[in-house]
């Protein structure tokens, strides 16, 4: 253990001397000869101040996966600058409380949200870009939480208090902001039950422990500790 680094260092030193010699000779022979690029792998490590070192390791909390559990395509499209104007189509189709024919669009939607059997339970009958309040007033898309609050009052209260749904950032308001996920970033409004997901890797029975499950239990191993 202690000898091998010494040997390597000796070899390195010799190699360096040799390289230096070659350079000197080359310089002496012809001025034009450029110094050969030193072989990086063979050079000893030179400590650099940490500031000038490339950033390694996990930077700034990127190792923590904070993506919302549900992808909200619509919202993302809006964020990306799309108009996402429902009325472009819906102005052609007047609102109907009951649909008596199969839908041509939105076929992927399976409504599984309690008593809400109809689109217009939530969507505004005349302005499809908004949701509808009790009194028929519009609720802007950005305020979707208020729509949910119509029925889920206690949950809304908890959410406002910061104990329903995940928050990220700072618990201490003096130190920084906290962000809150909105209802639809976790729940699909058409099928709001939180979706099952695959669990991450489980604990294993410690391999150093005796008798892993499934192993042969018959003999209590070669333990010879008796006095």
């Amino acid at each position, binding site marked *: 253990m202690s000898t091998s680094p010494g040997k390597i260092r000796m070899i390195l030193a010799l190699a360096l001397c040799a390289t230096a010699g070659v350079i000197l000779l080359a310089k002496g022979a012809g001025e034009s000869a450029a110094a050969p690029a030193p072989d990086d792998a063979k050079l000893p490590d030179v400590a650099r101040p940490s500031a000038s070192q490339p950033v390694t*390791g996990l930077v700034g909390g990127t*190792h923590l*996966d904070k993506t919302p559990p549900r992808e909200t395509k619509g919202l993302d499209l809006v964020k990306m600058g799309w108009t996402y104007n429902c009325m472009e189509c819906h102005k052609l189709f007047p609102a109907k409380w009951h649909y008596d024919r199969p839908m041509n669009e939105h076929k992927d939607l399976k409504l599984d949200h309690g008593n809400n059997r109809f689109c217009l339970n939530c969507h505004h009958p005349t302005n499809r870009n908004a949701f509808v309040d009790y009194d028929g007033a519009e609720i802007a898309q950005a305020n979707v939480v208020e729509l949910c609050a119509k029925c889920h009052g206690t949950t809304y209260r908890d959410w406002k208090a910061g*104990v329903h749904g*995940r928050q990220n950032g700072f618990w201490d308001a003096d130190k920084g902001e906290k962000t809150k996920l909105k209802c639809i970033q976790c729940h699909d409004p058409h099928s709001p039950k939180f979706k099952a997901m695959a669990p991450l*890797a489980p604990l294993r029975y410690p391999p*150093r422990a005796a008798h892993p499950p499934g192993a042969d239990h018959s003999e209590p191993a070669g333990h010879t500790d008796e006095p």
Partner: protein
Amino acid sequence: MNHDPQDTVSPRTIEQVYKPIDRRTFLKGSAVAMVGVAGLMAALKPLLALESGETTLDDLLQKHYRELKPEDLKKIMAALEAKTEKQYGVRPTIRDLKPIPGVEFGYALNLTRCIGCRKCAHACLKENNQSRDDAQDIEMSYIRVLEMNKGAINLETSSVYYDPETVPQKGKYYMPAQCHQCRQSPCTKVCPVQATWQEPDGVVVVDYNWCIGCRYCMAACPYDARRFNYKKPSLTKDQINPNQSYLSNRIRPKGVVEKCTFCLHRTRDGKYPACLEVCPTGARVFGNLLDPDSEINYILNNKRVYVLKEEVGTLPRFYYFFDK
């Protein structure tokens, strides 16, 4: 077997004892001594494999964290940064974050919401610089997620090995357990060298440079919250979280006990702990118990809260609650 089949010490041999040592005896004795020393050296040979600089004189002379002067601590932390860089190839920033006055941390976990996805347990591994390449290393995570049968709160019927396609499973509920940062903490009480103690903000910490590794605290803990470094952590460069603190997630040496510190290197900066940041269901609630408007106090005031193993009298700062 503790017996002694020695032969008679005859009067003749006793007489030898009174005489001064002669040349022959001396040579014989020297030979025996040589054999003995050689045997001793051979027995201790594995020690040559110890990494140089693993235990320095400075380490041995270092005082308890709470007795260190700030400038000494600074030096020690710089030395630790250098050591980490040498051993792991990343130079971390090790800080010494003090408790914030007027803050006592509390944590609540919503058993109605938790689905047992183990994201918290794995984020914990990453945040706290624990080895995680090996499947077996996961158990160093400070969080154990228990799968419980509905209708039972008997921990002994729980499972930590569950691995279905998806969670949650029918008929089960999930209970993550980690350090409860008890007000009457049995672990700090039993430590013979006070290498672990409660900070003013309620976090139970370990001075990894002071712990002697007797593991009495592990025996004392009713929540299985402490982990022992049976080996040196194995971490690659890109696995290391460089935001480290002396009392929490700096890379531990082997042979010491470690535990959840509510991520004090984050929480004393005002941030949420890592396990909360990744929880997909928002089952985790963290905050300042001394602030009446905090989220944690909202839970304590409005929800049906219970603590695990109340009968042990530990008065945890970690609460479980139900939502529905």
